[in-house]
């Protein structure tokens, strides 16, 4: 589904990613872990097309397409979803309106007609309820005045509506209390299927107690320094990142 080869990227001439190689197959869940500044969020940003990064080398193909050559909105409707570490507020634009526009953009790319208003309303209500967000939030401004945890759950609501082929969740677990973490995990697990893949970018192992990853990668200095299964995550939790990053140096 996603094939990253020798990916190098920089911000303001400062190299952040220094040769990432990663292959993600359909139906797989990959956790990308690593200390602050290791390049985790940059990886998510580069894959989703966030402005501000310069790709200096390497390639990324997504279902056979050259991902790096696509606009952010093209990547989105091709099935790539980014769950934001810091979801953005858009005052005056209702959550429902925003999400409906997104759903319709994805449908248009598939050649489908716009979703009917009643059907959409029912979908969004279900997704909000699953994330235990009050349904009046569908009429509030996008993320406007939401708490940190509500914003993160609102990201999962969008993921549930869009049903992406590949979801990259950038520290969706940070700042969540244990109940919210369980809800978010349930949302992810509900979407897991043989056709759908996930990249979970996270600091902590605790999300992985609820969402079992197929592969765990440790990022340090802009490279993957260690890959393994969920056992690796547990070892990291017990021994700290120094254990692998020191080893890499």
């Amino acid at each position, binding site marked *: 589904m996603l094939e990253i080869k020798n990916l190098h990227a920089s911000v303001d001439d400062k190299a952040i990613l220094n040769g990432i190689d990663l292959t993600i197959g359909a139906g797989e869940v990959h956790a990308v872990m690593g200390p602050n500044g290791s390049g985790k969020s940059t990886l998510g940003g580069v894959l*989703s*097309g*966030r*402005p*501000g*990064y*310069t*790709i200096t080398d390497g390639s990324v193909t997504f279902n056979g397409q050259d991902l790096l050559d696509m*606009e*952010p*909105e093209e*990547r*989105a*409707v091709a099935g790539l*979803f*980014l769950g*934001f570490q810091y*979801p*953005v*507020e*858009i*005052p*005056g*634009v*209702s959550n*429902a*309106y*925003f*999400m*409906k*526009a*997104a759903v319709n*953009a*994805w449908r248009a*790319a598939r050649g489908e007609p716009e979703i009917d*208003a009643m059907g*959409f*309303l029912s979908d969004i209500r279900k997704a909000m309820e699953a994330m235990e967000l009050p349904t009046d939030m569908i*009429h509030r*401004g996008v993320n406007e005045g939401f708490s940190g945890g509500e914003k993160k759950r609102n990201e999962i609501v*969008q993921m549930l509506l*869009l049903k992406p082929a590949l979801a990259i969740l950038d520290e969706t677990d940070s700042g969540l209390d244990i109940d919210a973490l369980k809800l978010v995990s349930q949302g992810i697990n509900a979407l897991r299927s043989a056709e759908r893949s996930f990249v979970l970018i996270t600091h902590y192992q605790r999300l992985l107690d609820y969402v079992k990853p197929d592969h765990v990668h440790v990022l340090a200095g802009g490279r993957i320094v260690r890959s393994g299964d969920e056992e690796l995550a547990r070892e990291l939790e017990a021994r700290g990142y120094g254990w692998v990053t020191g080893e890499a140096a």
Partner: protein
Amino acid sequence: MATSTEELRDWIKTRKYEAGFVTDLESDTLPPGLDEEIIRFISAKKNEPEWLLEWRLNAYKVWQDRHEPQWAHLQIPDIDYKAISYYSAPKSMADMPKSLDEVDPKLLETYEKLGIPLEEQKRLAGVAMDYVFDSVSVHTTFREKLADAGVVFCSISEAVQTHPELVRKYLGTVVPARDNFFAGLNSAVFTDGSFVYIPKGVKCPMELSTYFRINEMNTGQFERTLIIADEGSEVSYLEGCTAPQRDENQLHAAVVELIALDNAKIKYSTVQNWYPGDEDGRGGIYNFVTKRGDCRGRNSHIAWTQVETGSAITWKYPSCVLRGDNSIGEFYSVAVTNNHQQADTGTKMIHLGRNTRSTIVSKGIAAGQSDQSYRGLVRVSPKAEGARNHTQCDSLLIGPKCGAHTFPYSEVRHPSAILEHEATTSRIGEDQLFYCRSRGMSEEDAVSMIVNGFCKDVFRELPMEFAVEAGKLLAVSLEGAVG
């Protein structure tokens, strides 16, 4: 990777004016120039009574001693008032059309290009239309239905003939000729405009709507609108504008006077989309308008809502004089400027009566190299016990080359007054744009969505048809479409 600010600028640059076309229509146009003879010609052409000619001539005298206002944050090129033609009527108007069939098909074609076909408008929403093409009203619909309710809705030229006593009683009582340079000029040479009278206790059965259109080369537009809501009456009036694309600058100096008597309510909404000039700032309309409402009676209420996207230069301050006790004035404004447009716009709320209240919500959006200012005055007179004002003034900047300024003035002469002022300036964030794009929306759609969200507080004050038009102007369907 290109920055999205650059892409955004490109998009804004290529947003072309869609109503740019000129209808070829022979006109009965005066040669350029202005003197007493021209004024006598206009008055005679319109078969006006002697008192109105005298009123015009007096205004002309007053105007000659005055100068253009210099205080606005605008750069206005020199205007040669002698190079302007002060009268133009489409030739086919020599005989007034009795029905649509008699209207020049080219006129109808023009309206269709604008997306306002008469037949459609007739069918939709029961909106009565008083079309103004250049300076002469060509068609009025729904007259009978309004007449049944006792509502007078016609061109002001017609009202001078049919209701001279009303025109004489109220004309110039809100905006006198000496008020300012442009109002003086308008009073001397106004050619047409709308007249509305709502009798006592009548709620106007439909929204009244006028579409203005500027057409002749070098023809100044001097519309005069007078709306009177008698005791206990209510009316909602819609004004929408668009103009053909051309290189000549065109002056527009309208005057709108609203009078609300005891317990009356007037809601006046404008969507203004005149040609703003090209990308390099050539051409475009100069819009120097004086709009003022007089809450003359107790418990009267006047609300201005405007969506201003057009004109090269805008100088406009729809205001309320809160004379009657407990009267209410409101001003809701969205102003969008792009490329080289300049706008200095805002409002005045003059509190004279006791327990008068006013609300100001101004949303300014500046893009390209445009420059816009909000200028607002809240004045509380020594007798205006218990006056209240709330002002909310927000600016949104798109790109690094535009400017937004806020000039709030307060003059408070009563200790009981309560005034609140909130102001913000923000930029469309790259993070907002990227958030929308990462969900599959194009950058263009994302900008429209963010801007519409920003304007929501004003759009919801608009009547439904206008809200749709305003949304179209900002190229996105409105909030609340879901559910």
